[in-house]
């Protein structure tokens, strides 16, 4: 699973990291302060133009003090009344049709989603979660952007604002109402999706007892059975049973089956379709082909620099340093105690080799303090597969001495251990990113994991509602919707937008890009020096400042999505959920205040 940014512990994220990064709370207040100053200056400029500097200043002061006073007089009953009204209004606008659309999408999805995919759960979960996300964002957008403008258009707002209703209550009531309605719709979509995925992928196989091959021990006694299941849902499993004819069907297409031997082997329904692996991530560094420490491996020419590569049959290696290891993390297997490890390898081949054949790699573990290293254990790597390795507790050192993983390799202080991965075949490369190797802690509850995944969709929906309602306090319906759509789109491409503003993207600012587009000039070469280029870049430098300012308040929608966690079967870290909920709260608070002042300073009957 791709995890481009490290998920910091919640408190560290909130207050700032030890590496000098600014925390979420200080950053929030910086933005609030900047918006406050900007709002005051803008308010004063508009007011002064109409009423002169003194009159303008007086009005700005009165609006500000009234605003702070009114914020302390918010009434829960009024907010709830307005929220109920928003819900009734949305229901009257046939919002339920969206649910029917979703159910129709699910009905037809089975035609297009093929269960012969090598990981059908990933395919199905990605589909239902992505469809839910976009549908919910669409609903949130339309409901929030058109509600208040409709009240203005039909003048029903007259009978509301002539009651003791604070503008903040109107904004919060709308946000609450639409969020509650969205929550119920999201719940219905989540339950429908769950039933759809499980019913589409659940299956069982049969075993023809006659085709089971007996495995005999040295004395001719039966020590087990081996064979295959029948082919159902485009796949079959290899089975490995004990002498009692019970055991497990080997993982295929991302799931397994248990087999009970009593009264003939009976295969259970598919298990492990939905998982919530809990990874313990380490820090990654590299060795180059000469064994020199590097921050990154080599590039194989991919534009996406998420992974970097190590060369096969050389001293090049990827080294992960794990912390917090202890003996409680081992699992009991038939071969003794083992430390479970997950490894995802991207294979880059410079020669074809045998198609479909795995590339051989090697794993070693090392004590970061003493340098004591285990001997190399080979493994077979297929491209982009989650390979679940187990490191035995009882190991052999490079000196051929027996060693214990926790007594000799893992340090006493901090539970640190280094895991070294190498590619053993000449001319082939392994590519890694930091989250590609992890210690597998016991799986978390898949159902609870789905709740967390849906919470991230909920967060996105609430943010869209908050922005839409806030925009609609000033703009009419279609314009508020366009504004919110722009905000969402820029939010999805926030990194790129910020990159253009800071000049890290090729092609210059907006005007330069337009010039290059019109003149069909590529984005790499510099503009020809001259007055024209200077003018374009000067205008861009001003625009870039605005863009940089806007980028600071854009919600990073691409980072909210946790679809990947559910699709690849990983647990969403609680830190991530808390961070998203905190961001959501900040957006609701921020947009409600902005919405309050926009509505407060608007002439309702104009």
């Amino acid at each position, binding site marked *: 699973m791709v995890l481009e940014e490290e998920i910091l512990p919640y408190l560290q994220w909130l207050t700032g990291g030890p590496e000098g990064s600014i925390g979420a709370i200080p950053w929030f207040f910086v933005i609030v302060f900047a918006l406050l100053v900007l709002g005051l200056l803008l308010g004063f400029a508009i007011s002064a133009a109409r009423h002169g500097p003194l009159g303008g200043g007086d009005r700005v002061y009165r609006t500000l003090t009234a605003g702070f006073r009114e914020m302390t007089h918010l009434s829960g009953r*009024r907010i*709830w*009344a307005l929220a109920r009204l928003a819900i*009734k209004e949305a229901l*009257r606008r046939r919002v339920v049709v969206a649910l029917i659309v979703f159910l129709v999408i699910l009905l037809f999805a089975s035609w297009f989603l093929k269960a012969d995919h090598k990981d059908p759960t990933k395919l199905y979960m990605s589909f239902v979660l992505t469809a839910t996300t976009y549908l919910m964002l669409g609903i949130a957008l339309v409901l929030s952007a058109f509600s208040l403008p409709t009240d203005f258009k*039909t003048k029903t707002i007259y*009978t*509301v604002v*002539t009651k003791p209703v604070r503008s903040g209550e109107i904004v919060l009531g709308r946000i609450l109402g639409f969020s509650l309605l969205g929550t119920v719709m999201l719940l219905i979509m989540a339950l429908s999706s769950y039933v759809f995925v499980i019913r589409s992928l659940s299956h069982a196989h049969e075993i023809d007892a006659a085709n089971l091959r007996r495995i005999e021990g040295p004395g001719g006694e039966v020590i087990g059975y081996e064979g295959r299941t029948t082919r159902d849902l485009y796949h079959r499993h290899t089975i490995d049973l004990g002498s009692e004819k019970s055991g497990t069907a080997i993982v295929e297409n991302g799931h397994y089956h248990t087999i009970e031997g009593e009264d003939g082997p009976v295969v259970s329904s598919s298990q492990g379709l939905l998982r919530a692996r809990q990874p313990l991530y380490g820090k990654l560094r590299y060795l180059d082909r000469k064994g020199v420490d590097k921050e990154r491996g080599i590039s194989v020419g991919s534009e996406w620099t998420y992974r970097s590569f190590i060369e096969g049959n050389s001293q090049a290696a990827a080294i992960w340093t794990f912390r917090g290891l202890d003996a409680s993390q081992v699992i009991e297997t038939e071969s003794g105690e083992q430390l479970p490890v997950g490894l995802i390898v991207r294979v880059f081949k410079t020669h074809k080799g045998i198609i479909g054949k795995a590339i051989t790699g090697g794993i070693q573990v090392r004590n970061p303090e003493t340098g004591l290293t285990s001997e190399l254990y080979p493994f077979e790597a297929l491209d982009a597969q989650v390979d679940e390795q187990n490191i035995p507790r009882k190991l052999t050192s490079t000196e051929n001495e027996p060693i214990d993983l926790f007594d000799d390799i893992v340090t006493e202080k901090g539970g640190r251990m280094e895991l070294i991965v190498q590619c053993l075949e000449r001319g082939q490369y392994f590519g890694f990113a930091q989250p590609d190797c992890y210690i597998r802690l016991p799986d978390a509850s898949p159902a609870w994991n789905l709740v967390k995944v849906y919470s991230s969709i909920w967060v996105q929906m609430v943010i869209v509602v908050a922005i839409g309602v806030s925009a609609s306090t000033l703009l009419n319906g279609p314009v508020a919707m366009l504004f919110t759509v722009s905000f969402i789109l820029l939010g999805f491409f926030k990194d790129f937008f910020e990159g253009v503003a800071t000049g890290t993207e090729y092609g210059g600012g907006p005007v330069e890009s337009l010039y290059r587009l019109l003149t069909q000039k590529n984005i790499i070469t510099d503009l020809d020096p001259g007055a024209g280029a200077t003018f374009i870049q000067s205008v861009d430098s001003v625009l870039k400042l605005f863009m940089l300012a806007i980028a600071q308040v854009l919600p990073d929608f691409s980072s909210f999505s946790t679809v990947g966690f559910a699709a690849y079967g990983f647990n969403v870290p609680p830190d991530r959920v808390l961070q998203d909920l905190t961001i959501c709260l900040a957006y609701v608070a921020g947009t409600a205040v902005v919405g309050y002042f926009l509505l407060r300073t608007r002439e309702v009957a104009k």
Partner: protein
Amino acid sequence: MSQEAVVQTRSLAKVYRDFWGRQKVRALKALDLEVYKGEVFGLLGPNGSGKTTTIKLILGLLFPTEGDALVFGKSASDVSKNDRLGYLPEESYLYKFLNAEETLDFYARLFDMPAEQRTERIDSLIKLVGLDRARKRQLQEYSKGMTRRIGLAQALINDPDLILLDEPTSGLDPIGTREMKDMILRLKEQGKTVIMCSHLLADVQDVCDRIAILHQGELKELGRVDELLTIEDVTQIRAKGLSEDCKNELRDVISRHGGELQDLSNPTTTLEELFLEIVRDSAARPGRRAQPAEPVQAAGGEGQG
């Protein structure tokens, strides 16, 4: 009447501007008004005279270009003034997808009213405006008259001290009009202050204590209705059962004293009174043609004029 001012406007002016800030129209010019506690105050004027603008400025729906509007001594932009205020807009701008109960419940909640008080108040208001049998029907199914009634009920939900009525009798049939006027007079009896604006001069005349006449945004006349309408140099005599001789004698007396007799005839009732009489009679004796009304009893007997 107490002279405590409930509404005050001081040099209140409003200029409507376009998007670019250019002046479109000067809707109100330096209006100075005081409306006192317990009176029914009428704002009169032709279309575009500034009366609705005045109401909107008092409510805080518009911001003044110059001057101030004070309600209960507070600025019109102060939301807390709305605690004691009720407003019936011209078109009863209500949520059509709610029924009468839901509508009143919604507005009652906006006054932070507890549940028990809400239920009681909603019940009494629905009965008061005569919508008991339509309380569960959505407002989109209501006739214009019914919509006006539920609009009035929402304006009274908080038992306000000040009620602003914008064209209160607009769209009402004669019975509804009479009920509305009776309601205004009852509110006055309860000590409420009512400000209304209307095109229907007769309605204003019937219920208002004082009126202000606006034209092109300027205040043209302000005073008590009875004083404004009194014609100082004309005397009106109403009597019942006079013979022709007596009438001739009266003509002579007037002539002898140098007066000019303008009219000596039988008075007529108003069309409103005639209509109401017929409807009342029809309700009392369904299926039969109504008996002719007795005009003198209806109009002359009350000593109007």
